[in-house]
């Protein structure tokens, strides 16, 4: 996905961009509303991440201008204002969703996905691998023309593994990506999801291997 992040803290912007790029997204950063307008006129974006406190104005004004001009790129407001009133406020102004800083990337991604799914648009990023196709947006794998629904954790697990086929991921690495840091889960909890994903991928050419003492990897055949 191609993100435009409008955020005045360069430090935060750089970290968020780096983190999103790790997941294979393209991210442009605009430090002000003026920069944002420039970026928007130059390239199409799937999603805008919008901070509210910007050096040259209020993010809400940007939101209002976008919606008035009928430019309906999905906008997720990303703000330090955590009050219920602020939330209701920006949603009323036409934002698609709202995350409070500091945010959980898994949650941000889930919200992006939910927004894109709701809008029914966005560039469909279908991946092909060893006899199946995978659409993260619709959470489906298709094996021999037969679609199978993936649950969220199965989907994210598959995404992680497919980002680097044949690479070994440790249980701890997978746990960190799959579970919230707010809950403490034992590393063995990952086994359940590996087993489920294996079942979903049955019939395709892909195999999820257990590498004893090291972790898991996905490989073709």
């Amino acid at each position, binding site marked *: 996905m191609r993100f435009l992040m409008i955020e005045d803290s360069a430090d935060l912007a750089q*970290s968020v961009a780096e983190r999103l790029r790790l997941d294979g997204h393209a991210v442009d950063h605009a430090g002000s509303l003026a920069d944002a307008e420039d970026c928007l006129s130059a390239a199409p974006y799937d999603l805008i991440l919008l901070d509210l406190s910007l050096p040259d104005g209020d993010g809400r004004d940007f939101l209002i201008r976008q919606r008035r001009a009928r430019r309906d790129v999905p906008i997720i407001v990303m703000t330090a204002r955590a009050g219920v009133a602020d939330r209701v406020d920006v949603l009323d102004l036409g934002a698609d969703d709202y995350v409070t800083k*500091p945010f959980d990337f898994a*949650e941000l991604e889930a919200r992006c996905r939910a927004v894109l799914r709701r809008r029914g648009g966005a560039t469909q990023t279908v991946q092909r691998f060893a006899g199946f196709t995978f659409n993260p947006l619709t959470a489906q794998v298709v094996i021999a023309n037969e679609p199978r629904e993936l649950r969220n*954790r199965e989907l994210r697990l598959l995404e992680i593994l497919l980002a680097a086929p044949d690479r070994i991921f440790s249980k701890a690495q997978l746990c960190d990506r799959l579970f919230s840091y707010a809950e403490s889960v034992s590393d063995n909890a990952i086994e359940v999801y590996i087993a489920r994903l294996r079942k979903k991928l049955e019939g395709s050419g892909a195999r999820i291997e257990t590498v004893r003492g090291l972790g898991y990897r996905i490989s073709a055949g």
Partner: protein
Amino acid sequence: MKRTGAISLRKRLVLQLLALAAALAVLLYVTVRTVAGDAAEETLDGVLGAATLAIADELRGGEDGVSIDLPHEAFSILGSISQDRIFYRIAVGEVTVTGYDDLPAPARKLGSGLASPVFYTLPYRQTQVRVAAVERVVLADNAPVAVTVMVAQTRTGQDTIAARVANRAAGLGLGVFALAAILSMITAGSVLRPIDRLAEAVGRRGPRDLRSVDHPSPAELVPLITALNGFIARLRAALTRTETFITEAAHHIRTPLATVRAKAEIALRRAETEEARDTLRAVIRSVEESARSASQLLDHATVVYRSDRLAREPVDLGKLVAGVAQSFAPTAELKDLAIRTQGLEAAVTVTGDRLLLESALRNLMDNAVKYSPPDEEILISLEVVDGLARVAVSDRGRGLSGVNQAELTRRFARGGNVRDIVGSGLGLTIVDEVTAAHGGRLDLSEHAEGGTCAALFLPLG
């Protein structure tokens, strides 16, 4: 909360006007009495004097001495005015010619040249009498003899007149006082009415109305209104400053926290050793905890502030619940939790503050998502039970493990079975305070098959 230390303006004004009216009434009474008394005396003296002179005119001198033919008209004039008793004495020197010889002569010598009589009052026969005396010189035996004519009259008539006048004067004084009292009430009312109107105009304002007062008022109230407006402006500025400060503070704390969190997550992705991972996980958990506490504290402050002056607008609970359910869907999805809703299509409306109700519901949902194991279901249902709206959030989590509701809704209190999950201990406090502010209640219970059911009961309408 009325301060009653100072006497009310109305009371003070009325009391002072009444005191003034009383003083005027007394003065009026005394004046009328004195003037009327004097006038009565003067009138009676005139009649008495005229009678005395009429008698004196009848004095005749002759060879055999002084003679008099008492004129009856003189006595009948006196009798016609009042029922007073009349005494007379005609004397030559100390010798009484005719009449009551114990009637005392005037204290000083009367000159014969005086045309008009001399009046004096003295006690006589157990009563007070008014005496008119006049002296005439008569030729008797060709020698001039000074004859004194004294006519006395008791003063019952004058006293009766005086008493009557006094009664009238008292009545007049009372009447004036009563009229003044009524007028002073009316005056106090009309003088104070602008103050009442101003108080009413300010008192009628909504809780968040901080416009300056521009109520039409008399010039005397303008300084007060100016001062009030100055105060309102300062209050408004202080509130704006506080709000800006909170927003700024939140921004300045949360943005670096977000940076720390993002960097920690990136570092965790790249960490090689288990030790480094543990450290970074701890960092992320701490960031999460402080951010969550900050939000909850802010929410709690909002709840306390808004509960005091609760907005009263109709809130469509079905719509509210649906919105909250939708906004939690992505978070729930991360744990493969399904959110199921029930009864949201029914039109259930309560009166209250939409933001507070949403805040309460979000806290319940947040708990349900946090404490549910993965792959389970969270059920939000809306129904009307015994004339109350019931919004319930049911999860299949770890339940309450016997901790009672009163304990859980205490500030910063948390259940003993949730130490491994980040939380601030303010969530249920917020829910409890919001429902209480709306005249409803929170009901926490455990399912037989495990899990918690948190239900809000709110009065309809």
